[in-house]
């Protein structure tokens, strides 16, 4: 072991301490967003900012790849392009694919929830300001939801609803003590992990309390940790 090695280890040891406080590379943020979305029983607010950043980065990288390929083609004969260069391009391409995959997982999970709770979210987002920054759905999702619902209602109507008595044809019937609107069940238990230093106390009702300590893994009702998930003190796993 030479002096460089020792220095290096010292450096990594200190830098690791720092990074542990803020583990927020774009990649990590995406993973957290994806897993949270997958595990939560309801639709979480769309990560407008994060997705915007990531998509911009992806197109940057793709431009870089295009430029590099051009550069590679021009200099192919002169032997400037080494295997190393190709390897680097390959790593960049793989990285783009990995991020793409994560985004796809994220969006697909959201779409499946929108499909499941269509009427509920149409009602929920009805009086949202279309220009506000913290909308629940992205504009594409919004469009998808409405069109999907339109097609689906038309299909139902044509297939069987038109032959039923008029009183039975409502898809959002809430009379008769039974709501026809499928709603997310916020009481579902979820696996969560606390990632802040300060302990979080949640009440379990009937003067029962539970402390969530750092790094602890718990299964609790989603409703109880909902607020902590939105500020990021607790992540779902």
């Amino acid at each position, binding site marked *: 072991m030479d002096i*460089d090695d020792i220095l290096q280890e010292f450096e990594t040891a200190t830098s690791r301490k720092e990074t542990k406080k803020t583990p927020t*590379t774009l990649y990590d943020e995406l993973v957290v967003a994806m897993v949270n979305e997958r595990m939560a029983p309801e639709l979480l607010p769309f990560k407008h900012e994060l997705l915007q950043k990531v998509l911009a980065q992806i197109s940057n990288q793709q431009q870089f790849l295009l430029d590099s390929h051009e550069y590679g083609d021009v200099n192919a004969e002169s032997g400037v392009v080494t295997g190393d260069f190709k390897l680097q391009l390959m790593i960049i391409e*793989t990285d783009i694919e990995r991020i793409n995959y994560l985004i796809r997982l994220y969006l697909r*999970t959201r*779409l499946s929830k929108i499909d499941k709770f269509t009427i509920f979210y149409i009602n929920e987002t009805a009086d949202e300001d279309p220009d506000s920054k913290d909308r629940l759905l992205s504009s594409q999702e919004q469009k998808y939801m409405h069109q999907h619902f339109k097609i689906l209602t038309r299909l139902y109507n044509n297939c069987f609803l038109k032959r039923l008595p008029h009183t039975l044809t409502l898809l959002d019937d809430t009379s008769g003590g039974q709501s026809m609107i499928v709603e997310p069940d916020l009481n579902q*238990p979820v696996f969560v992990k606390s990632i802040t230093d300060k302990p979080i106390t949640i009440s379990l009702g009937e003067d029962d309390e539970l402390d969530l300590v750092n790094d*602890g*893994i718990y299964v609790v*009702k989603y409703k109880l940790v909902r607020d902590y998930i939105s500020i990021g003190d607790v992540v779902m796993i």
Partner: protein
Amino acid sequence: MSLPSHLQNNLTPSEINFMAENELITILPRYSMNKIELIGTKVPALRAMRREEIPLWIAVVLKSQDKCSIVPPSWLNLTYLKEKYDEEIRKPLRFSDLPPNWLEVSKILLAKASDDLADPTHQLRSILQDLREIRLVKSRKGLRELNESNIQLNGLSLLEINELRPFVLTVMNKLRLLHDTIAKKDSGDADNVSDDEY
């Protein structure tokens, strides 16, 4: 549909593997390479024989091209794992604290970089399997403690949680529904005595 039902509310082992591939790992490059700017992370400029920390998946790529050797993490050796195994036996009610993705990382390293590990791979594999089994037995025993409101499962890795998840969540959900009906009945009991028949 947009997401197959086996993917809903659960992760697949391959997805967990995918997430573990982004764990940072120390490598010892054999060649120099310029730094690469990636979206998620940054790969620093590599210089021969100078340790650097890079994401595991890049390390595996470089390794397959013989451009680096991987420095195994401090927990992936026989002595440490034996110690943890003994700890698992000594404390039957606790899980020893292994890194949250020990199963995935060790699997990747054993498959792709077995020549960089300090100990013979068959011994490592067998101690990892032992650890896995004893923890599995423990978590199964812990299922007896399931109730309708909450449980605590410190020290379990993501992959192990994922195995338990479908069972735990379904059972807790059912218990919760049962519990809710009891609570409702209790409040309704005052004017309805005939409930005793059930």
